[in-house]
């Protein structure tokens, strides 16, 4: 009977047999890839004067300005244009379109995500370097938080809004630094949550695998 039971439990494809913890970690990797797709293709930055109640811009124009979603490709690769109002300290407020520039912060995000996914895969199948599991979990969290910070990075890279001080050639007081109309677009929230979800899945997988053997709590 025991022999028969053991035979019944034998997987159909032994090479594909994975423990529950490994499945969780694979799910974390898959979720990271999905989050990257969301980050690169869904809108990441929202320019919405209509939502900005304490505007220093001209009120009548605010309500006619379309809610503007800056796509992931424009945000990351800088291939497209985006439009916003620029207010001078001397009074006039001009409507201007600018070509986005390549987002180095975004490149950091993508590299971190790939690094996290690669390390996760390595840990998942070697099963001998669990001491790095917390570090990998942190690596999943970092791009998640960076997604939520997309508007800040976008402002900095493209040198407008509150980050305009980084462009010394703008002579400081020339423009009024007004960035509160720039928000997270839904794509940044979805991608950010996906990265954080990957961190959770990886943590669950680590727990199911027995966790970090160097962890004092596990030794107990």
């Amino acid at each position, binding site marked *: 009977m025991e022999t028969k039971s053991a035979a019944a439990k034998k997987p159909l494809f032994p090479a594909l047999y994975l423990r529950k913890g490994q499945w969780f970690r694979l799910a974390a990797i898959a979720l990271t890839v999905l989050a990257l*797709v969301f980050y690169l*293709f*869904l*809108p990441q930055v929202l*320019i919405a004067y209509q939502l900005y109640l304490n505007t220093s811009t001209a009120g009548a*124009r605010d*309500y*006619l*300005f*379309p*809610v*503007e*979603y*800056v*796509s*992931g*490709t*424009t945000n990351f690769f800088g291939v*497209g*244009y*985006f*439009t916003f109002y*620029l207010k*001078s300290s*001397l*009074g*006039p*407020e*001009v*409507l*201007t*379109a*600018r*070509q986005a520039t390549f987002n180095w912060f975004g490149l950091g995000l993508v590299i971190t995500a790939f690094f996290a996914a690669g390390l996760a895969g390595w840990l998942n199948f070697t099963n001998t370097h669990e001491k790095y599991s917390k570090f990998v979990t942190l690596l999943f969290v970092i791009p998640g938080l960076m997604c939520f910070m997309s508007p800040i990075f976008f402002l900095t890279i493209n040198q407008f809004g509150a980050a305009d001080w980084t462009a*010394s*050639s703008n*002579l*400081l*007081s*020339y423009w009024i630094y007004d960035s509160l109309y720039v928000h997270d*677009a839904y*794509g940044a929230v979805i991608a950010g949550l996906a990265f954080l979800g990957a961190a959770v899945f990886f943590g669950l997988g680590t727990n199911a695998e027995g966790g970090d053997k160097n962890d004092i709590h596990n030794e107990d």
Partner: protein
Amino acid sequence: MTSTMKTKFLILPILVLTSCATGSFGEKATSSSFVEVAALGQINIASCYLKTKVGIASVSNSASSVSSTGTLSAHETDFYSNNDFKYSGSDGAVIGHTEKGFHYLLNATTSMGYQFTTDDPLVPYRDKAVAVLLQDYTALSDLYDTIKTYATSDAASLGFDSVNVTFAEAGDTVGYSAFAVLSDGVTSTEVDYYLTLDKAVDEAYVFTDVIIRTSVTTLATGIIAYKNQEYNLVTVSDYSSTNFVFNLTSYSIVLGTSNLSSIPSSVLIGK
């Protein structure tokens, strides 16, 4: 599942994703990007001002701090109902006002003025204000033509290393931005134009906010010599909707004078 269905199954999510990514707007300006601008006779300009700031900025090596000094000059013209007007500039500040059948010509700087029984003494000052306005509007029209040229010409033929002109439309507002750069290894000259127009009458657009910024950077020292010119223009559908509200009691007014030539020059300036 057929292969066609499989293909659709794979393409559909991509289409959904890419369709979500079309929200930002703005484009490189072309000859077709330019709108019809209202002629001066089609619009009623309530006010127009030009501020000019010229100065020097010094950029530190870390580029984290900038010290900037500059001098600001400005002139402004305003028109109201009943042919009331204001003009202020480096050559003086004059107000023309009609109230209860009397015409007042006032010096806004000294708060002194004269009362007349006819409008004639106010006419030359009003004409001067109109002349300044015409000069400003012509300058803006010329600038608009310049931007058109920038959008349709290559940088080398314009004498720049690079020229980039963008166009955006948001509601009833259109904006043109031109960024031109020229560097000779010693200095770097950057000219930025921002023209914003709003829809006014008969689908034609009128200039509202215009900024011209020229900076010449000495590359070795980081010293920037700059000149900023900024226009703001307000139009109304009808002057009768714009009443000039001010208090005559704050002015020292000489009564009963009807001859402009008898007014001391110390009272009225800027003619």
